[in-house]
């Protein structure tokens, strides 16, 4: 993990965003996951997959992966950092906290945030479905809005 807290960055892009860009946290498959959710944008082919390990309503561990743009990567990285170790209720509130953290997002960035949150929610649905005895490798949700690559740094001070 790249810690940029002590690094003096030139004026411009937010150091936290830069750190997540250079080294996304909680990225890739998670062997210990007990539920998997995918949010897919059929129009662009973009997806986000969440691997969540839930124990007694606590997100013990969580990873994600995406073929999406850098906004999606950064939001996924920040969001997984926020929810790891917290309970599901906190994780659901973290969606709002992320909005506060990121400030005013462009509509395109909002779509990127939505696909990340939807993938996490899909993993929770998968968890409940498995508890109910349904055979489901992962839960898939289709997105209604499409994301275009945009500039994350422009709206983050």
């Amino acid at each position, binding site marked *: 993990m790249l810690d940029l807290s002590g690094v003096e960055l030139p004026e411009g892009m937010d150091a936290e965003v830069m750190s997540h860009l*250079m080294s996304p946290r909680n990225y*890739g498959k998670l062997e210990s996951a007990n539920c998997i959710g995918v949010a897919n944008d059929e129009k662009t082919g973009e997806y986000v997959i969440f691997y969540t390990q839930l124990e007694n309503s606590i997100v013990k561990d969580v990873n994600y992966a995406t073929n999406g743009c850098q906004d999606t990567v950064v939001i996924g990285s920040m969001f997984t950092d926020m929810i790891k170790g917290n309970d599901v209720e906190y994780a659901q509130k973290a969606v709002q906290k992320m909005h506060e953290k990121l400030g005013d997002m462009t509509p395109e960035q909002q779509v990127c945030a939505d696909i990340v949150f939807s993938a996490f929610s899909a993993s929770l649905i998968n968890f409940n479905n498995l508890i109910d005895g349904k055979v489901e490798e992962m839960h898939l949700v289709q997105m209604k809005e499409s994301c275009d690559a945009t500039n994350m740094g422009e709206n983050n001070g």
Partner: protein
Amino acid sequence: MDKLYQKKHELWLHITFASFAINDETIKSRLYEFSLIAFRHMKWIGSDLLEHGNDYNYDRDIELYKRENVFEVIKALQSEVLNIQKLYTDTILGKRAQTDDAYLLEYLRQVLADDANNQEVTAFNMQRVWNKGELDASQTDALTLFLFEELYKEYELILVYAYMQARTSNALHFNVFQDLIDESHFHLKSFGNMMAKLGILALPRELHEMTYIVKDLEKFVHDGIAEEEAAKEMCKQLSESIHEEKLSKFFDFINYQESYHIELMKKLL
């Protein structure tokens, strides 16, 4: 999944990013040549696995550590090359890879033998200064985001096309994939070296199998064309917003290359 394939994938990245990290043009260029040889090894090892009814994936376990000088980069690379040796099989392909690696190790030894080669590595200094500071903060941010976006995209394209190329029996498709792979290697090299110049060199993130296991070629091509169009637009915007002549011309040049990629991709339909 196959350990040798994964380690060769990692070694290809180690050599490629060592090349990007080093400023000396001669060492950079030689390492880049070796990286392309490593990529061919990867391709041949993959084909060999498929021929024998086995499979491979693009899982990897690799970190790009911040290095301060050339010798640190070279010594780390030396160690990676040595580590893979025990995995080669006693086959013609295994021997080919071993002799190529032996020559690479000899080259690395030669670099280490001359203290004059031990220059500072600036690829990780986070300064984000282009040349003598020709770009203002917003232009630098735009360039930074573009490079992160496209470095990943080119890495993704190389691996996705290689995965499909290894599995096609259509000669036209095979050739189109090869052209697209070659083009993406050039773009990866260009963008990686630019990131190093800005002091923000970082590995592209790992590919998930949902990205490279393509079930619908037609949809894949249509999505790919849309992505190329988006990349063209980003190049055009960067070219217009960056008031630095050489950089603007470079993005115009990349923009026209993307146009031809679209034509190549249409041949897959």
